[in-house]
Structures are given as C-alpha cells and as structure tokens.
C-alpha cells in the first residue's frame, strides 16, 4: 500500500536518488551516443575506405605502430571496452527477460560476463603488445 508521500505530486513525478539500474540506463544511452560516432566510423572506414580484403597483418601493424599509433590503439581500446560493456549488459537484459529460473539466470549471466572479461583481456593484450607482439614475446622468452 503506497503512502501519500510516495505518490507522484499532481503534474510532477517525484524522483528518488538514482539507483544502480538507473545508472546503467544512463550508461547505455551515453555509451550508445559515443559508439554512434566511433563504431559507425570504424565500420565504414574499415569496410569502405580500407576494404576487408586489404586488412592484412601489415595494414594492422602500420596503423598501430605508425605515427598515429597511439591514436589508433586508444581508439581500438575504446571500441573494445565500451562495445563489450554495452554488449554484455544488453545480453544481461535479454537473459533477465527470458530466463526466470534464478540458478540458470545466474549461471548464464556468469558465463556471459566470464567470456566477455576473457575476450577483453585477449583484445587488450593484442592492443598493448601490437601486431606480432605476442609472437615476439614468446620467441624472446624461449630464446
């Protein structure tokens, strides 16, 4: 039973302090706005300007190690982190909509987040070490 103090004032909605889910709601909008620029640019640039057939090892190395290398690495890192955070949260919304068994819901969410964090780790490793960086590290370690 709602008390009169929790009822909306006529013509006005009373807002409480933002809770966890309303912060996520805002994150989905802000990350979406950012990615409307960055992801659409990435897609059209790589598919139209560069062309998927021309994305070779040397092409990636040129971008990451060339004069604008820091820019491209930060740009790719932003795609990786913002894209995966937005995507994993979208999958969590879908799981919550369809999987009502609490144990199954928890297991699926844990699987999606575990896989997502592992892929963020792999992607970060590639961006930090650069094209062929892991191979060079491996040969230097094994002599």
């Amino acid at each position, binding site marked *: 039973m709602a008390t009169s103090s929790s009822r909306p004032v006529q013509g006005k909605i009373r807002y409480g302090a933002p809770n966890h889910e309303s912060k996520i709601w805002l994150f989905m909008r802000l990350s*979406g706005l950012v*990615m*409307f620029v960055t992801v659409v640019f990435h897609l059209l640039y790589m598919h139209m300007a560069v062309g998927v057939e021309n994305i070779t*090892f040397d092409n990636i190395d040129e971008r990451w190690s060339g004069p604008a290398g820091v820019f491209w690495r930060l740009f790719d890192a932003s795609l990786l982190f913002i*894209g995966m955070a937005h995507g994993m949260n*979208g999958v969590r919304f879908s799981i919550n909509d369809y999987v009502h068994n609490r144990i199954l819901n928890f297991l699926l969410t844990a699987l999606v987040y575990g*896989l997502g964090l592992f892929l*963020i780790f792999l992607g970060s490793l590639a961006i930090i070490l650069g*094209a062929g960086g*892991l191979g060079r590290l491996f040969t230097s370690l094994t002599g």
Partner: protein
Amino acid sequence: MAALAASIYRGISYKGAEGQWAWILHRASGLGIVLFLYMHIVSIFVAAIGPGPYEWVHKTLYTSPPAKVLEVFLLFGVLYHAFNGMRIIIIDFFPALGRYQRTIVRIELVLVVLVLVPAAIITLRGMF
C-alpha cells in the same frame, strides 16, 4: 526456455506494429553484434601472434563468398542498432515526441536504407 517460446508466440500475435518490430529488431541485431564481436576479438588477437596465423584466420573467416553475404547482415545490424538506439535516446529525453513514434521509426528506416544500400553494393562489388 518456455518463457522464450511464449514470448515469441505473444510477440507474433501482439500486433504492436512499428514500435514492437523496432524493439524486436534492436534485440536481435544487438545479440547478433555481440556474437560477431566474440569472433572479431579472437581474430584480432591472432594478429598479436604473427602474420601467418592472422592472414589464414582473416582469409577463412572474412573473405569467402558466404562471409561477404554475412558482412551485409553485419552492416545492416550495426547501422540499424545505431540509428534505432539514437531514436530511443531522442524519445527518452524528449518524451513529447512519443506521439509521432510510428513516423519516427519510418524516418529511421529510410536513413538506415540510405546508408546501407551503397555500403552493401561496395561490399558485394567484388563478387560479380
């Protein structure tokens, strides 16, 4: 899973028109993009190993004729999700526009097609 089957059945029988289909496409394209991202991140990770493995993975996954057709689906999915997301943000922050939401969905689809058609032609050009 019963909830998913019931949701699909009710989704088809609900007849929610533009808004409902926009929502279904947003969810389907979002899940599709996440699946693509899993593959995309792994294939870029292989570039950190060396040129030989990377070029084999790239050729196998992205340049075969079926992959070029799937690339057009990816273009559609990303462009639709981006434009529909902008529509959601605009209506969230300007709720008065909700009165015109059916028209806004139609305008959005026109914008998606305007970008998608030339992009799809450029993508499939090499196949003919």
